């Protein structure tokens, strides 16, 4: 038996839950088919979400999932340029024609989809991105030069979340695109996803008792993102997310973390997202999205 997870036509953080719903009870017993034929666009969050799902299936010892590529040649080429198919080749049995496009010096991809599993990977990511980030933040988003260092710090801390807490490897991608629907401005999006423990399991031993009946995915996210709690007893821990929040408050950015069945966001005025969404379809690990918008009058 094969179970179909339909890839939303417009696949971003908003439509992610629709995708997660396709798996039913986790891990699904049936072989999965990721049907991307109708896909017309995917954000970095959507792209690495698909890789995460396939990795989680592998770690749950399920049969290699099937993947049908987008019908649109343009979409296939775009996904190839992001590095998606390069990583997907190892995780999926791919059906359909995959264009041979080298992953990318595309101007909108600040960082192609990159695997993160160890501290050295974070060094690579941060080292590679700084020069291009400086140019994009200033030219495309109208941010001051000093925003670049904060951006790289936020990226570093988001990636370290995988290394420190996930118990497995994950993925990161950084793209620049036009947030026409929600904002009418250009944005840079950092997406980080892993198929690991998730926040609830990571914090359970130290925090479950404190929250009592309230303990669950939402409470775990609240402990980590709002209260700065870490599973380590070391008092210096938990500063990574605090640092990201500090950076985002300065540049009117948004952070959103989905783990298990909940998603918690710090929502700036320009967005209409809910701060907390509970009882979502389960999805393994943790997915972090950071959005930094062009400054008003600074967008191109």
């Amino acid at each position, binding site marked *: 038996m094969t179970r179909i997870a339909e890839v939303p036509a417009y696949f971003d953080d908003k439509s992610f839950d629709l995708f997660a719903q396709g798996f039913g009870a986790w891990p699904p017993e049936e072989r999965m088919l990721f049907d991307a034929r109708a896909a017309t666009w995917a954000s970095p969050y959507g792209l690495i979400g698909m890789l995460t799902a396939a990795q989680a299936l592998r770690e749950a010892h399920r049969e290699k999932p099937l993947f049908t590529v987008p019908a649109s040649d343009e979409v296939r080429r775009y996904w190839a340029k992001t590095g998606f198919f390069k990583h997907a080749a190892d995780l999926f049995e791919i059906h359909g024609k995959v264009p041979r496009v080298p992953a990318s010096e595309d101007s909108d991809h600040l960082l192609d989809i990159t695997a993160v599993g160890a501290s*050295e990977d974070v060094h690579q990511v*941060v080292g590679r991105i700084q020069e291009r980030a400086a140019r994009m933040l200033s030219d495309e988003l109208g941010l001051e030069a*000093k925003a670049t260092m904060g951006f790289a710090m936020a990226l570093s801390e988001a990636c370290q979340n995988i290394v420190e807490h996930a118990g497995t490897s994950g993925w990161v991608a950084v793209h620049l695109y036009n947030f026409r629907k929600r904002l009418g401005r250009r944005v840079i999006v950092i997406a980080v996803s892993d198929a690991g423990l998730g926040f609830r399991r990571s914090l359970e031993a130290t925090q479950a008792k404190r929250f009592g009946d309230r303990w669950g995915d939402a409470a775990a996210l609240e402990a980590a993102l709002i209260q700065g709690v870490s599973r380590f007893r070391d008092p*210096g821990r938990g500063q990574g997310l605090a*640092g990201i929040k500090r950076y985002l408050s300065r540049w009117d950015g948004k952070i959103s973390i989905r783990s298990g069945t909940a998603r918690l966001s710090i929502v700036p005025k320009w967005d209409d997202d809910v701060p907390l969404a509970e009882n979502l379809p389960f999805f393994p690990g943790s997915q972090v999205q950071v959005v930094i918008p062009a400054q008003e009058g600074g967008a191109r």
Partner: protein
Amino acid sequence: MIQMIPLGRVLKETVSTPYRDLVTRPTGAAVRGWIQRAIAGSEAPTTMLDFTEVGLLDFSCADEIVAKLLLDADPGTEQYVMLLGTREDHAEAIDHVLNNHALAIAVVAGPGEPPMLLGRVTPELQRVFRCVFWSGPGDAGSIAESLGWTIERAADALLTLSLLRLLRAEAGTFHPLSQ
């Protein structure tokens, strides 16, 4: 006597990376270990960590290097740490992590300028710290007189600064670290 430690060079020796960035906790812990060994092997009471060649410093690495170095300092030893060559973003990360631990550190500014303090330091402590820098070593009485404070108030601030290892106390006299 001051021992200088160029962190850019320490990074190259401890982590095999072509980059100049101090990022991640494992990197920070490795660099801190190197610094602690250097301090233990030196007779200089003050160690200056030079950030001049450092690219990015993230919060986790700042916590591992600077905050934990101060937290791990043996209270029985006369060892002091100062910073040099920090950029605005370095200072911001260090200030953030030190505040979290209620610690502080001095950063050497331009020639002849009093060091800048990062971390949890009240304006009152800042004032006493600058006073000692400008007037040189002194006791509670001389500092109280310079500031127009009571001796108790000055003594309290001087003691706090020495406990934070921002001044060196010696037989009731408080010395700036960089002199």
